[in-house]
């Protein structure tokens, strides 16, 4: 499933603030794209527009060729918000939150349940399956949000700072979970991040967003060619960050980031 954004602009009405201006972007099927930029550059707004939560002031968004209409999200899309407490259902247990998407889609069967149970195990929240989301810690809530978004195996995944507010060790483990899922199912992914490491390790392509100048794109991620043999271990993969070619790539990202923020 591809995502295409044409001449997109967005302005918040109250208070009147221009956030996005004339954005054009195409994300191909199966591509993992990191979206970076300074605070207030419109990264989250762009993700919300693609997920149909906000209506663009101008321009259009197409998912797999179909125009996105407000509050009519594409059927096979997942969205993880910055704030997990806002998107989880506090009246359902952890277990039921994960089963919920498949239940609503009439797809809850032995196989999907098994897949959800595996996610609970991988994300290490199985011991909290009978707890309610508001009783979980911030990190557990983040993991639950990710589990919910992966539970119905969506073809497009939108992640808005999925690792913000959690410790580095846990973030590393979550990279693994996501990375393996991306490799296994080949979904189209757009994720917002402030971490160059995250962008370097997870993304095929990094895009820098500047609300005045639009988008600047980086070249294909160098790691993409080298990580096939080490996909199962984030520690191994993380060692790659010390590799000279990767260090160069990371510096290149940093330069782009500075350009986008300072312009």
């Amino acid at each position: 499933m591809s995502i295409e954004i044409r001449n997109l602009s967005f302005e918040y009405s109250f208070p009147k603030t221009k956030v996005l201006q004339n954005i054009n972007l195409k994300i191909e099927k199966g591509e993992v794209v990191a979206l970076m930029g300074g605070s207030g550059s419109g990264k989250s707004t762009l993700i919300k527009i693609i997920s149909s939560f906000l209506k663009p002031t101008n321009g259009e968004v197409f998912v797999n060729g179909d125009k996105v209409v407000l509050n009519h999200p594409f059927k096979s899309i997942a969205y993880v918000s910055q704030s997990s407490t806002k998107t989880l259902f506090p009246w359902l247990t952890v277990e039921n939150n994960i089963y919920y998407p498949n239940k609503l889609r009439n797809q809850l069967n032995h196989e999907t349940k098994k897949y959800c149970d595996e996610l609970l195990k991988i994300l290490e929240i199985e011991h909290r399956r009978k707890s309610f989301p508001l009783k979980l810690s911030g990190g557990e809530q983040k993991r639950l949000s990710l589990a919910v978004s992966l539970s119905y195996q969506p073809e497009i995944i939108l992640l808005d700072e999925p690792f913000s507010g959690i410790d580095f060790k846990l973030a590393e483990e979550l990279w693994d979970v996501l990375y393996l899922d991306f490799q296994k199912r080949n979904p189209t992914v757009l994720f917002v991040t402030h971490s160059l490491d995250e962008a370097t390790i997870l993304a095929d392509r990094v895009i820098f967003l500047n609300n005045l100048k639009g988008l600047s794109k980086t070249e294909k991620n160098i790691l993409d060619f080298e990580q096939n043999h080490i996909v199962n271990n984030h520690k191994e993969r993380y060692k790659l960050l010390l590799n000279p070619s990767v260090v160069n790539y990371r510096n290149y990202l940093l330069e782009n980031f500075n350009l986008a923020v300072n312009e």
Partner: protein
Amino acid sequence: MNKLLQNPKSTSSLGFILLPIILILLCTLANIFAPATLQFPKPLRIFQDLFQSFTEQNVLSALGNTLFALFKAMCLSLFFGILIGLFLGLNKNIWNLSQPTIDFFRSIPVTFLIPAVALLVGVTSANIVWILATYPCLLIIIFNVRAGISKQEPERVHSFYIISGSPNIFQRFFKVTFYEILPDIFSGFRIALSYSIVIITVLEYMRLGNKTGIGGLINDELQNLNYIRVYALTFIIGILGFVLNKVIEIVQQKFAHWAVNLD
């Protein structure tokens, strides 16, 4: 001790034990120090009379009448309050249109308009007690349901659209909106219940309606200068309010547990 006081359950249990002790202490002090003209009986005699009154037919029948009036007032105000609250809150245009009227009623204490309602329905009706008690409770529940809708988390609603893969508004109402407003319905219900008990007792005391409730019985005993019974009946009203409030609190903990400690 600090930890004990920070736990809502502990403070509630502590209140359950401490309040009767404080009450007995105050009664004893009043009995010792109050001027003889106040005719304040000994607490022991009040409590003896309180227990004895539960075996008397006229007290039980009055309690039954008060409870029945309370039940009718609460059922009616809950049913119509939720319906009207939803009607005034779910649609944005109706919300905006109804806002000035709601602001007007919110600015006036709900009990202030009881005389106006009495003028409309007349004071000779046999059912006047619960009709008059319904009006303020209805307003409280309408305000709360509307407030619940306004507090609904937009990201959660959107998250529901995404995970269900459908923007069905009926499904959204029963699976999200209903749960979002449930804590506010309970809060409104508890406030309305307290109002209701006071209003019904006062109206009964004023001899409105044709059935004798606890308020009417207090009036009778006051005419007979039976002060011990007057205090015992007043305690019954307090116990009634406390027990009913506790029952709703338990039901709320069961069905709206996620919001109980967040109020």
